[in-house]
């Protein structure tokens, strides 16, 4: 047994320790959420033991394609990101904001009180850590604070997992968001399968992380183990299936609202909103006011919305963005460009979900490259 764990130092945990970690978190009152298999996809749901993890499975992703396949080993985290992202826990897809009841005075509003949920996320990838940090800026770091998001976020414990492989649709290296988790976690694990040995190199990123390690059986990682973990991350970096040149992209997109490529992508885009639902940073929502049949009870619900929906811009008898072209342009320009103006960061973390889950396989990296190829300034010279 090594001495007390320190932030930043590397330790090793075996499979049993990982199981104990899940138990420890559960016993400490956390709802542990992690990758599980359902309906042919890896999604994030409650995890009670390592048996719930998609052991020995991997995914094959391409534009418009996602398929699970058996691995040749028994890796627990041997896949990339699926259709879900962690935002569904912090920023619920549907959430009651308040209830109103008819009264002598007209009506009374009762805010929805929630016992703050205590989540522990297991298996958060580096791109996803960045996505969470981006949503923090939206919901907690501006003039107004979203109370539900804030409460859940402050209670959140994050066990990150470094990617040991990349999907064809991954481009976190381009976005400078991975594959190695560098900040924003309590604990980060790198899975290593070395001949017969299956272990995790762990690094604590917070006091909570060192506290957790303390309760598990851990060893200091030796140089060989560290090297094996680094090799895994390097392998993922080399496997990046996509690249996106972000040089000057903020100005590039804002300067090219009339680029012919927008017409081209509009012919392929179905405006189905899949990309925005799968995206871990998309934060748009709408509200719905519902009443019961008596008309005495009303509720306001907030639910995820998408800039691809026509009614997103409805106003007094018209829609601001009625064409598919304008809606795709809004989404991509926001994601890669105006997000910088708004939140001082890109809105894209390079996770590739929008590419995989687009029924048409529209590829944000390809669209950005096409606009870069013939920007306005060059067209004028022609």
């Amino acid at each position: 047994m090594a001495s007390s764990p320190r932030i930043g130092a590397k330790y090793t945990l075996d499979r049993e320790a990982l199981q104990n970690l899940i138990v420890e978190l559960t016993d400490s009152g956390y709802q542990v959420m992690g990758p599980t298999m359902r309906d042919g996809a890896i999604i994030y749901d409650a995890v009670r033991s390592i048996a719930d993890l998609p052991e020995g499975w991997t995914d094959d992703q391409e534009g418009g394609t996602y398929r699970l396949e058996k691995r040749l080993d028994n890796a627990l985290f041997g896949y990339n990101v699926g259709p879900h992202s962690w935002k569904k826990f912090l920023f619920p897809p549907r959430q009651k904001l308040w209830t109103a009841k008819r009264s002598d005075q007209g009506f009374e509003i009762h805010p929805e009180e929630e016992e703050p949920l205590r989540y522990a996320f297991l298996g958060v990838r580096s791109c996803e850590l960045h996505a969470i940090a981006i949503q923090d800026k939206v919901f907690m770091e501006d003039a107004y604070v979203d109370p539900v998001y804030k409460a859940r976020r402050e209670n959140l414990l994050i066990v990150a997992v470094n990617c040991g492989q990349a999907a064809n649709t991954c481009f976190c290296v381009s976005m400078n968001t991975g594959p190695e988790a560098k900040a924003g976690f309590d604990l980060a694990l790198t899975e290593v399968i070395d001949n017969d040995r299956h272990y995790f190199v762990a690094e604590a990123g917070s006091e909570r992380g060192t506290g957790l390690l303390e309760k598990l059986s851990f060893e200091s990682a030796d140089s060989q183990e560290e090297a094996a973990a680094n090799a895994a991350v390097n392998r993922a970096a080399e496997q990046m299936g996509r690249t996106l040149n972000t040089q000057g992209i903020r100005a590039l997109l804002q300067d090219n609202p009339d680029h012919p490529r927008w017409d081209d992508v509009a012919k392929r885009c179905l405006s189905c909103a899949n990309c925005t639902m799968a995206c871990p940073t998309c934060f748009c929502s709408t509200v719905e006011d519902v009443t019961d049949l008596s008309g005495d009870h009303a509720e306001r619900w907030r639910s995820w919305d998408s800039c691809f929906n026509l009614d997103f811009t409805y106003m007094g008898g018209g829609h601001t963005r009625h064409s598919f072209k304008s809606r795709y342009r809004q989404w991509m320009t926001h994601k890669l460009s105006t997000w910088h103006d708004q939140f001082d960061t890109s809105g894209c973390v390079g996770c590739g979900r929008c590419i995989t889950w687009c029924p048409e396989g529209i590829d944000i990296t390809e669209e950005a490259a096409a606009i870069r190829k013939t920007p306005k300034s060059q067209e004028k010279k022609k």
Partner: protein
Amino acid sequence: MKSLQPILEEHPFFKELEPKYFELLVGCASNVRFEAGEILFHEGDQADRFFLVRQGKVALEMAPPNKEPMIIDTVEEGLVFGWSWMVPPYQWHFDAHALTLVRAIAIDGKCLRKKCEEDHELGYELFKRFFSVVTERLQHTRVQLLDVYGAQV
């Protein structure tokens, strides 16, 4: 009687017109005055002059079929109206009546047409000036046509 030349020279419509033309314009110009409510001309009347408004407000009216007439434009001091004298068959396309006491300079179009035929340089100068009035009026008409204050945003 005071010559109309200084008045014409000061009017923005004739800004930077070559001085030699003013004498000629004065020859076609006359001072006119309309009491409030007085009709300047009716649609279909012979359009043989145009007006430089010096004071007051003139309403230009059109009557939609089977409906009461609508005021489609108003013209105030400093502005020019009337270009039907330039285009055959030289007839007014709307009614004009004085909303207030109106003082204006009326310029005889028949006389000016003849002079423009003789001196195309003058004709070009006048057409340029009228063309910008026509363009502006057309642009305003289009905006009014859009009904921008209707329910549609």
